[in-house]
């Protein structure tokens, strides 16, 4: 296909604004699928995606469309909708030349509408604004138009109206893509230069590399070179997804497809790397992507300790097509062997946990999420800490800094007061309020990331009855009055229960933890003090009374076997507990602290 008949585009939207349904309609209009074939939301092929209505993994579909007597190839490059996945958004946007910005006519512009819009502009994409769900009775087209104009400066006649449900406006949208999105530039005669923007693992074919050819041509039989890693491979197959895998012989400039080469493991493929030919390489690699940072960490442990290797395998497989998370082995006194995992954000963490449980059939225990702290030591050196257990002694610490985020909270005006109170309680620093319209505002706050990793999102949704949305970006580290709170059981520190917490909150949290442990740890043969401490200072204490009754009174009719059985049962129960400081601690007690439950 000639370059001028190719269009590479993405669709971006706030979560639930109808992006995936819109994609399905585009597939229908271009005859890629029939209406009957269309399982709802064809592009979301993971269960979780379909259930949560979010798209996580990229999917690229090649579509054919005849317009003004010319055949066009339209490559729809799907993007995840959520802010956590902005890394994936940006890499799919880098493979596109245009983007459809979808806004729900009943909701208007929301937090991720703006976040995704800025990412698209960063990638110099042509934007086609679309107001979707116009068929709904509650659709307010005028208001949404006004918001689009005010927020981004679009003109009235640029904005398209669609209903992905009824199909209204879809044809016009497809034709607008052909008219407005530029065809790919690049030179077929230059040496091959092709961007890797995703990879996935297929159990039959092995590693599939998703690539967009920027210059030149890529053919079966070519020996290719990955410029970053320097490794070379023989191309054995090339596919496009239509949405069925179809074999083709080559990918020319501007085209997008899946390349199968003799690649052993997915980790050999670095997303953002440049493919060229071994014999005739290009001069310079593409800029690639800025490396991503994991901002939220949690410990993942198998519920059954013998599933550790299964968990490792599952993590390795997931990592194949999710470069966004990291994991390293970790041992917890309470939970045994597991992994410390880092995520791009909270939703990302949820999704990975859910995929592990669902796709790999694992039962997991997740510890309370934490962030990475920057610790300035008294000797002047800096260390990064992603788990309270790694924090040095207080005497060696000069300051602890924590990551802060700038958040934009989109909300109907009536919830502004309560949402500000929420931010205030989370140690937020007020910045500004902007009114998009008299009814809708954006609240700007700076918040410590650690305060939002736990229950901020749930609270935001419940305060605003589900209407507020938020988006955040990391703005760097700020020193905070943070302390490590230890829990001592019978005078012995339980490492797995330590937390890093703001000093002002420590007393309260300490009391809550100590009281709940008192309920969860069974009485022992002696009085057991439970203490919360900062360094050597005890900030909360509660005692578990000594066991008072542990006698099987009646040894009836000589039935001593029964008595023995009861003792055996009692012993089994004791065995399941962890002994620390001579005290038997059940797993629920650890979990309550590790999950931050109250």
């Amino acid at each position, binding site marked *: 296909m000639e370059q001028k008949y190719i269009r590479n585009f993405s669709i971006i939207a706030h979560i639930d604004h109808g992006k995936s349904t819109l994609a399905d309609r585009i597939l229908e209009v271009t005859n890629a699928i029939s209406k009957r074939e269309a399982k709802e939301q064809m592009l979301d092929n993971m269960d979780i995606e379909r259930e949560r209505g979010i798209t996580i993994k990229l999917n690229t579909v090649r579509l054919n469309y005849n317009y003004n007597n010319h055949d066009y190839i339209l490559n729809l490059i799907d993007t995840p909708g959520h802010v956590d996945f902005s890394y994936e958004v940006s890499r799919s946007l880098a493979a596109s030349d245009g983007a459809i910005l979808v806004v729900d006519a009943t909701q208007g512009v929301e937090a991720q509408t703006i976040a995704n819009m800025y990412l698209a502009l960063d990638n110099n994409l042509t934007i086609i604004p679309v107001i979707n769900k116009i068929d709904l009775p509650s659709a307010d087209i005028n208001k949404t138009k006004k918001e689009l104009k005010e927020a981004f400066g679009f003109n009235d006649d640029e904005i398209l109206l669609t209903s992905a449900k009824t199909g209204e406006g879809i044809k016009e949208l497809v034709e607008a893509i052909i008219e407005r999105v530029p065809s790919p530039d690049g030179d077929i005669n230059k040496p091959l230069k092709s961007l890797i923007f995703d990879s996935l693992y297929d159990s039959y074919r092995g590693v599939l590399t998703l690539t967009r050819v920027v210059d030149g041509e890529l053919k079966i039989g070519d020996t290719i070179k990955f410029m970053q890693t320097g490794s070379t491979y023989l191309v054995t197959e090339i596919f496009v997804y239509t949405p069925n895998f179809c074999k083709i012989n080559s990918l020319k400039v501007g085209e997008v497809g899946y390349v199968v080469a003799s690649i052993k493991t997915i980790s050999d493929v670095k997303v953002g790397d440049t493919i060229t030919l071994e014999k005739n390489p290009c001069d310079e690699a593409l800029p690639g992507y800025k490396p991503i940072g994991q901002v939220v960490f949690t410990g993942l442990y198998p519920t059954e300790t013998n599933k550790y290797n299964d968990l490792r395998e599952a993590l390795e497989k997931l990592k194949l097509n999710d470069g966004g998370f990291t994991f390293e082995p970790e041992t917890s006194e309470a939970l045994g062997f597991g992994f410390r995992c880092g995520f791009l954000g909270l939703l990302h963490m949820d999704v990975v946990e859910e995929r592990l449980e669902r796709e790999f059939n694992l039962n997991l225990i997740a510890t309370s999420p934490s962030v990475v702290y920057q610790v300035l030591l008294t000797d002047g050196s800096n260390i990064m800490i992603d788990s309270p257990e790694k924090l040095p002694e207080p005497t060696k610490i000069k300051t602890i800094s924590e990551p802060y985020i700038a958040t934009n909270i989109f909300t109907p005006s009536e919830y502004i007061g309560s949402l500000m109170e929420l931010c205030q309680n989370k140690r937020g620093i007020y910045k500004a309020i902007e009114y998009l319209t008299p009814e809708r505002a954006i609240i700007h706050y700076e918040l410590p990331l650690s305060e939002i990793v736990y229950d901020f999102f749930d609270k935001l949704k419940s305060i605003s009855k589900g209407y507020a949305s938020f988006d955040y970006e990391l703005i760097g580290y700020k020193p905070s009055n943070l302390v490590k709170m230890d829990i001592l059981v019978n005078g012995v520190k339980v490492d797995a229960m330590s937390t890093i917490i703001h000093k002002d909150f420590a007393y309260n949290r300490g009391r809550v933890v100590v009281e709940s442990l008192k309920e969860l740890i069974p009485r022992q043969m002696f009085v057991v003090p439970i203490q919360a401490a900062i360094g050597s200072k005890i900030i909360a204490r509660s005692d578990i009374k000594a066991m008072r009754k542990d006698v099987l009174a009646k*040894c009836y*009719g*000589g039935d001593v076997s029964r008595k023995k059985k009861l003792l055996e049962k009692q012993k089994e129960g004791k065995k399941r507990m962890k002994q620390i400081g001579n005290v038997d601690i059940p797993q629920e007690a650890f979990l309550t602290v590790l999950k931050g439950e109250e």
Partner: protein
Amino acid sequence: MVSSIYIHIPFCSNICSYCAFTKQFYNEKLVESYLKSLKKEIDENYKNELIKTIYIGGGTPSSLKINELKELFDILKIIKLAKEYEFTFEVNPENIDKEKLILLKENGVNRISMGVESTNLKLLNYLGRKHDFNLVKDKIKLIKELGFNNINVDLIYAIPNETIDDLKKDLDNIISLNVNHISTYSLMIEPHTILYINKEKNIDEEIDFEMYNLICNTLKENGFNHYEISNFSKFGYESHHNLVYWNNQEYYGFGLGASGYIDNIRYTNTNILNEYINNFKREEEILSLKDKISYELILGFRKINGINKNDFYDKYKIDIHEVYNIKELLEKEYLEENNTNIYIKYDKIYIENSILINFIGE
């Protein structure tokens, strides 16, 4: 050598709300076939040993009619009693009478155990008992008049809503009966009982503990010897039969749901009446040396004087200090020893189980 027999009579004229034992409503026809099966079991198993203790328990053995009791004693005629023996029969105040007592006396019963449980009408009602304390006094008087001088009464405490004062009154009343043996049980709400089904909750642990201390102190002040975790007796009136269990000695168990210990096997008969009558079934546990030592310890430490070190050595050819973690428990002062015996420290007996689980398994 076996020298003890337990016989279970599973019938009751009334089902108590806390009872988790093998029992069922009295029914003439069932009693008839039950006694036949019991006879068969005894005839087939009893090997003519000289018997020193017999215990007829239930259920409610006294719920049997006089002719049924006669039949029961006929069945027991083949048992050879030693010169010195203890023969206990369990009775309930509401269905024991002069005629039955005379029959017991004639057939060699020399110890009566009465289920008094409480003397407080409110608590008796809660327990589903059908007597009052006046009836108890009358029946104890009658029992004594007929020449029984070895009498036990059972007392249940830690009943939901029971107060310390209620218990004090119970103790005073029971002491006033002037019997020579008292068994006290803290109420356990067990599965398959009316209380459990009604989701009744056990009394607070602290009150239970206070009550136990009150019982131990009061009974000791009144001349009772605390010789087993929940048993008290006047000097020389310990239950010889129960000591057989706690000394880990062998005994026959005959009847529905009865347990026995013969030739290294601990067995428990089926507790389903049909199975017992039609196709006799029982569960068996064959004991290794290790199992026997385990039982020796978990049973022996129920006694306040614990285990005799020499006897232990004679039986197992190993020093008791070398088994399980006896040494560690001595160091931690859960156990204590004197020249002859090793025992649970008296102020730790209320957490007996937590100590005994050390002697279970590996």
